[in-house]
């Protein structure tokens, strides 16, 4: 539609997450849509933009518009912008600016965001796209009810029932089977992996938890057929530690990080080279991002070198930490992290945390802003850049939604509700590996 619209004003394309925005931009470009035919944004950043441009019509103080207090400010801004739009103050400018409005992933719309979209829809032709079975996000606050809110505001035009992604991958059978699961997933009826097509591998888990863990680790190493194919490993939601454990134990795997990078942000607050224990803090955090870095052993050895009790020469890794301890600064911290990463058999399995961490240390070293500010800035830049999956990535349904791969490995299908299960099962276009004790799974009650 974007490709074939008349030249002139661009369409406004809105979605929910910056990852989604980045993915849409790439897809629009790939589809050969002429530049300038679409302006893509997230609903929230578009709303903040309007609040900044028209602070008086929104009636918001500057601190709120600048989102100094994210916990409450987003909601305040959404409500104020929805009210401003509903009053029609920007009708003229909206009509002059955009040809139409498209909103993607509408099932994730919060009620305030829905109010913004319906207000804009008074002046612009509006199309919303979404799948209620993929509503797994809870951004805080209630989300739209597909029938009660969406169907009344935007009467359904068509349902997409052709699994193009699988057809394009040559696995239409798999696509049709996934579509056929939808009624059962909505109705919380059991689904049976034994009736699945050949592209689906069911790994029967057995034995004690240790054994099951070994089975899951093996499944996580499922080989993709093509060389550049990518694999998504879907671990337990809300268990980033578990996901990191899988990533560190699986050759070539990296984690997909939550955009808020909570532990990096915490590290940004805690880490201070002037602090006596800063070397320990640094090593602990490094060990969280790299394999084969035994922090306890490393710290013990560094301690004995410092007190002169060590009998052997320091290893490369030990020397890196000692150099930091001798001259602690953000600059030496960054170089120590790089040297640790380059160490023998060491591998970074959290590049999405490592890169902004080092970049922030470099920025803090130059002294223009504090380390914490630099971490926040690097985090925000990452958030805006979006992400691309390559190789083997480990995450959860929440983190991997919107990402598409050739192979998806679902390690914990039991305990997932219908939407989570659907999102997990539909990530891979060529192959699907599911680990569970029983071949028949009943969707859990929504959490």
């Amino acid at each position, binding site marked *: 539609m974007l490709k074939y619209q008349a030249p002139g004003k661009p369409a406004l394309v809105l979605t929910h997450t910056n990852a989604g925005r980045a993915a849409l931009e790439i897809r629009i470009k790939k589809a050969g849509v002429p530049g300038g035919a679409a302006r893509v944004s997230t609903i929230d950043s578009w709303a903040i933009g309007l609040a900044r441009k*028209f602070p008086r019509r929104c009636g918001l103080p500057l601190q709120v518009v600048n989102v100094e207090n994210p916990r409450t400010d987003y909601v305040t801004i959404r409500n104020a912008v929805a009210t401003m739009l509903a009053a029609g103050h920007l009708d003229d400018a909206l009509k002059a600016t955009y040809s139409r409005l498209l909103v993607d992933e509408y099932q994730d719309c919060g009620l305030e965001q829905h109010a913004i979209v319906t207000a804009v829809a008074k002046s612009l032709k509006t199309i919303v796209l979404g799948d209620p079975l993929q509503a797994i996000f809870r951004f805080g606050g209630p989300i739209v009810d597909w029938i009660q809110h969406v169907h009344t505001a935007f009467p359904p035009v068509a349902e997409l029932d052709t699994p193009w992604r699988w057809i394009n991958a040559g696995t239409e059978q798999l696509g049709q089977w996934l579509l056929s699961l939808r009624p059962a997933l909505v109705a919380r009826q059991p689904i049976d992996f034994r009736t699945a097509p050949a592209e689906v591998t069911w790994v029967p888990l057995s034995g004690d938890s240790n054994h099951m863990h070994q089975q899951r680790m093996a499944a996580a190493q499922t080989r993709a057929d093509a060389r550049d194919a990518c694999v998504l490993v879907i671990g337990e939601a809300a268990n980033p530690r578990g996901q990191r454990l899988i990533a560190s134990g699986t050759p070539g795997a990296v984690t997909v990080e939550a955009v808020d990078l909570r532990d990096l942000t915490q590290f940004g607050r805690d880490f201070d080279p002037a602090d006596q224990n800063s070397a320990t803090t640094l090593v602990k955090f490094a060990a969280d991002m790299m394999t084969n870095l035994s922090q306890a052993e490393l710290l013990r050895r560094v301690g004995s070198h410092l007190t002169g009790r060590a009998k052997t020469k320091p290893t490369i890794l030990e020397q890196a930490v000692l150099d930091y301890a001798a001259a602690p600064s953000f600059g030496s911290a960054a170089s120590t992290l790089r040297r640790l990463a380059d160490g023998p058999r060491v591998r970074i399995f959290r590049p999405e945390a490592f890169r902004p961490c080092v970049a922030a240390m470099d920025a803090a070293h130059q002294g223009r802003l504090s380390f914490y500010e630099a971490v926040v800035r690097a985090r925000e830049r990452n958030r805006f850049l979006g992400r691309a999956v390559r190789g083997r990535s480990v995450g959860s349904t929440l983190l991997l939604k919107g990402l598409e791969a050739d192979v998806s490995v679902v390690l914990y299908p039991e305990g997932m509700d219908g939407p989570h299960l659907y999102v997990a099962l539909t990530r891979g276009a060529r192959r699907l590996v599911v680990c569970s004790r029983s071949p028949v799974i009943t969707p859990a009650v929504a959490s």
Partner: protein
Amino acid sequence: MARIRYVQIRNFRSIKSLDWTPGPGINCLIGPGDAGKSTVLDAIEACLSPRRVITFADTDFYGLDITQPIEITVTLGELSDELKDIDLYGDYLRGFDEVVDVVDEPHSSLETVLSLQLKVDADLDPTWRLYSDRTAAMDPVRNLPWKARLELSPIRLGGHPNSNLSWARGSVLNKLSEERADMGAELVKAARDARSSFGEAAAAQLKSTLQAVTATAQYLGIPIGGEAKALLDVHSVSFAEGAISLHTAAGIPLRSLGTGSNRLLLAGLHRTAAARASVVLTDEVEYGLEPHRLTRLLHSLGSKEAPPPLQVFMTTHSPVVVRELSGIQLHVLRNLGTRHRAFEVGDTDDIQSTVRCDPEAFLAHTVYVCEGASEIGLLRGLDLYFTSNHGTSLLARGAAFVNAAGGSPELCLKRAAAIRKLGYTTVAFIDNDKPAAPADLEAFKQLGGIVATWPPGLALEDVLFRTFPAQTISEMIDWAVEEIGLERVNQTLTKAAGGKPTTIDEIREGFRILGEYSPDARALLGAAARTRKQGWFKSISKMEAIARQFLGPRWDTSPVFKALIDHLWQAPG
């Protein structure tokens, strides 16, 4: 096309401060000389013109005070969609209507507008920017892209007419159509061959432009002799743009036409190209034009069209222009000391008749709104008398006389009030035989109007016949008998005496015996002289003659008369 909705000028030349809401069509600035009318035009041009070479001097600052920056802010409405782009210009979009003027953010009940600001600091370096209160402190400032500024740039009539009559860069001819002469081959060939042979070639290429020029010239009655031709200009030595120019059928360059013809033709061409023009500026619009051509020019600028095709800013000192325009197209510019104000004349009945009948009034400093023709005649006659006797002339001091011609003081006061509201020093000169309603008088005085009237119960004629010396009475009687005839004088006397047959001879006889006119005789004469529809002096020319010949020489012998004349003559301040 964009229209100027609001103009704000600060510290520019003679204007300390002006906030003005012009109309969407013709905006003709009138007012006393040195009021700053041309400065307003220059300000608009400086703010909207994309010329970067414009230079400023200390003399461009109000009162030469360079510490107060020049700020000219022009707010534009009827914006194209590109200029309302919420992502590009969202920080600058504002709202406007005629009641609230400009507010800083758009509103559902307001038009979406953009403000452009020109600012000049003591360093004399002009900066242009998009302006909104919420971005006022932002640095660096943002401006519109060059292309948009070019589209908004105003056209000045009378600026550089010669370039507009050839196909030079920026010429209005290029705005009439997209066609262009092939400068290379055809021109060189033409130079080699002959001027006329090129003429044939260009004429074919510029056919529709030439047709537009011819049609416009014919419509405006400019003699170009049949059809306009495009010929190689003999003065062109280089084959640059502009080498091809317009010529008459006889081969004379059109730029050799008189000033008036040039302006008229150019105005017409701009009007034809109006789809792309935004704003037309013209100073002293009447310059070089006879009244009939002036009227034609105003029509071609859209003076009678709704909706108006162009937004025009002009100045004038011509009553022809004032009469030709509607009150909503006229704006009186006033210097109120620390600030300027532009008053829209408006189109209420109270003012529109003055626009039609006494347009000179709007070009004056002091306006005397007279109840009838006699009052006007009195003022004119006395003015002539004083002028020829080295006294003070009202007309020379910028006075104008308006005839309320309604025969009632209320109407006179209403019309005077309408003029007073435009900032003129206004005198309402009314009779007092039927006193005006005190409320009307008070309302007019509240506005700062000056009331000139006779003692209660008296009309002009009563004062003349009751208070002047006998000799003047005799002179007026003789004049009346001579001019309007004995029969009518006697008729009016009889009427004034309540039907009792009375003749002028009886009154003359009374004077011969007494050597003075009795108070009864004087009262009767006054009443007769102002008989409705049969008055003795009831026309401008009659009262003018009386005033000049008989009242002037003895104007100070009647205390009542002298008091009022002093009052009237002091009005201009």
